[in-house]
């Protein structure tokens, strides 16, 4: 396959959820060639140069498939940090932060589900599995938010937070610090 074909094949199997530019594809191919993981074949009439995988490349690929993805390599979770900061910031209605996020996350989940409903289960299996990965990740976030809310109810006094205070202007939020946060 040449670069454009590789890009098309990748995007087809992931439903376009991870767009690639073709320059990125050729940079990666060059690096793989340097490491003897792929080798170039003669160019075709259109001047496009196909590549084929080498034995070392197959071995590397098998090792990649056989290795779990480390969660510690993932970027920091902004939402977790936001909630942690909300809890220790006076005047912030954490219930409202949780609910605002849950509504937005739920909406995302609804849309992924709508895409699933539209997909043909018989012929679009790889796309459906990519969608399922996103569905389960988003669902995990909702479950975690439910857990956060249950913990808030259990461990914080109702007076510390009430629905809607985030909608107040910033000046009001300052006043709430004085009025609502238990010392």
């Amino acid at each position, binding site marked *: 396959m040449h670069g454009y074909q590789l890009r098309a094949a990748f995007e087809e199997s992931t439903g376009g*959820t991870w767009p690639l530019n073709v320059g990125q594809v050729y940079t990666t191919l060059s690096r793989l060639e340097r490491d003897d993981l792929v080798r170039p074949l003669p160019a075709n009439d259109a001047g496009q140069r196909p590549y084929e995988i080498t034995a070392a490349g197959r071995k590397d690929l098998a090792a990649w498939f056989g290795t779990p993805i480390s969660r510690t390599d993932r970027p920091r979770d902004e939402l977790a940090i936001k909630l942690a900061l909300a809890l220790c910031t006076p005047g912030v209605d954490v219930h409202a932060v949780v609910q605002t996020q849950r509504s937005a996350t*739920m909406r995302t*989940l609804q*849309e*992924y589900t709508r895409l699933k409903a539209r997909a043909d289960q018989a012929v679009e299996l790889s796309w459906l599995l990519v969608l399922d990965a996103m569905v389960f990740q988003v669902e995990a976030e909702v479950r975690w938010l439910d857990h956060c809310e249950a913990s808030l109810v259990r461990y914080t006094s109702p007076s510390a937070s009430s629905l809607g205070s985030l909608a107040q202007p910033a000046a009001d939020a300052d006043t709430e610090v004085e009025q609502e946060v238990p010392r």
Partner: protein
Amino acid sequence: MTILELRSVHRVHGGGPTAVHALRGVTLTVEEGELVAVMGPSGSGKSTLLNLAGGLDRPTKGEVVINGTVLDTCTRRALAALRRRRVGYVFQDLNLLASLTAAENVALPLELDGVSVRQARPTALAALAEVDLAGYGPRFPDELSGGQQQRVAIARALVGQRRLLLADEPTGALDSQTGEAVLRLLRSKVDAGAAGVLVTHEARHAAWADRVVFLRDGVIVDTSGPLDQPDELLTTPGGSP
């Protein structure tokens, strides 16, 4: 067309200092072709809402309207008839009568409504065929898988003129794939013209609904509908895996 309407519905269980305010002024409408999911923690009022929506319970204050009929104005007999003719229920379990075949289970609400056995049977078999269970009519519930039993329950819930489907955790005991198949079926039945209310604590299941209503302490605290531009999800950084 509005199939179900809850107008400022309150429901208080018990009285005095131990009274429990299960619902506090809930207003909700469900249109034909619409599936509404209700989510919330335990004790938030989800099941009370479903019982009121199906006429199994009466509100302390406010009105429940099904197909234009205010339930509070109905006699006991008229209410029972409306429930039989207009409302179908799907629960997590205890859905089917074990001593009746699938076809007999589906035919039961028709027969209770005075339809003859001879007339009810073909209607029941057609309803089973619509949920991909053609040929399963003579089987007893214990001869069916959990997913097949739920499909029979959905067929029964929507047999005859029934257009309001109330489901309480209908996928509770099912594995992920089978549960999803049940939700796809619910969705397709609603798309074909029914109206549905789905109570669930599973966000993945609620996501099959057009709207998700969040209940807390008997109050609707938020509603989540579809995005204006869903395709953006696939190109924004937040939507990428």
